[in-house]
């Protein structure tokens, strides 16, 4: 009787340890996602807000199940020229998906003072591929290839001068040949010039 009770309690203890182990493993965050977030580095001073982390892949956190509370279907940063990393304020992003739909016409997609823009999935959930064009002050640039699946422009467009992988990535997105004729945003919660850091 004593032996049977002892055996049962041991079995229960083992079952408890195994159960706790399984629970611990299942509660561990996705390691790929965890590493991707870690690779983003330090948060922008004052962030997180709509001006934070310009040039970084927004969709790393802003996705269903991501670290951020909002889910973006498309998001990125527009810079002024090929040789600078100064965000352009007020650039418009035109998007058309495979079904011919676009973000709501009464909510034009515009960049803020650091050049960031985003489309909430609740406002537009596109069917890939997407064709994209950016414009400001009569200057227009159209992306040559399609966006096939990435929510973050920075998945392919790296805000890095010079690019680390010239054969497998494209430079940051820029609208002008050099500087924005309208100049850098004068008042902004964050410095729109990434090159200044």
């Amino acid at each position: 009787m004593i032996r049977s009770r002892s055996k049962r309690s041991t079995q229960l203890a083992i079952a408890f340890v195994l159960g706790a182990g399984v629970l611990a493993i299942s509660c561990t965050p996705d390691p790929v996602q965890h590493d991707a977030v870690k690779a983003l580095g330090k948060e922008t001073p004052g962030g997180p807000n709509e001006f934070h982390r310009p040039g970084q892949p927004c969709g790393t956190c802003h996705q269903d199940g991501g670290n951020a509370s909002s889910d973006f279907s498309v998001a990125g940063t527009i810079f002024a020229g090929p040789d600078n990393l100064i965000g352009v304020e007020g650039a418009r992003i035109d998007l058309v998906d495979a079904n011919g739909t676009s973000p709501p016409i009464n909510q034009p997609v515009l960049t803020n003072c650091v050049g960031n823009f985003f489309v909430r999935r609740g406002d537009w959930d596109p069917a890939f591929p997407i064709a994209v064009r950016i414009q400001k002050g009569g200057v227009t640039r159209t992306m040559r290839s399609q966006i096939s699946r990435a929510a973050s422009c920075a998945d392919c467009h790296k805000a890095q001068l010079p690019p680390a992988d010239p054969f497998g990535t494209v430079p940051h997105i820029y609208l002008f040949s050099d500087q924005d004729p309208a100049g850098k945003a004068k008042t902004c919660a964050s410095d729109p010039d990434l090159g200044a850091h």
Partner: protein
Amino acid sequence: MRQRSGLGGALKPFLYVLAIGAFASLAGLAASCASSPDDSKEPKLVVESADPAAFRLGVETVFERRCGSLDCHGTTSRGLRIYSANGLRIPNDVGNAPGIGATTSDEINANYAAIVGLQPEKLNEFLAKTPRTADDAYHLLLLSKPLQIERHKGGAALSKGEPAEQCIVTWLTGKADQALCVKGSTAP
């Protein structure tokens, strides 16, 4: 009679399982180390009849346009790697980069190798059929994935009947329709 502890008794079956597992792993390791190395001197051409000329002429651009963007198969981390003028480039010293310089012959050949090498045995089996039908072609991952007959991480990249899809189907079935390939490789 000396009584065994409850813990030891309960752990005994686990120890047996551990011992059997360790023995099986060692046996597997020994078997894998004992196999003879591949000493073939020349690479074998796996697929000969997937019409490389038609592929170069127009089919290839459909794969570039519809599959080869940098966020899909234009990346070194994904299977079925596709090089293209606007996407991934073979490292070079002539200044070719994404968006700079036309797709090179080496890149087109690499794309062909990636495509016919995706399921070499299944493709050979398919190509040996006479006649070959579109329905047969839909069993190949090359079409079943982008058509989402099978799960495709990138979602539906083609739809049945559209020019790009028909370009690939006609190429696989033996009579590549280059006019459809031109249509299928232009911007939607």
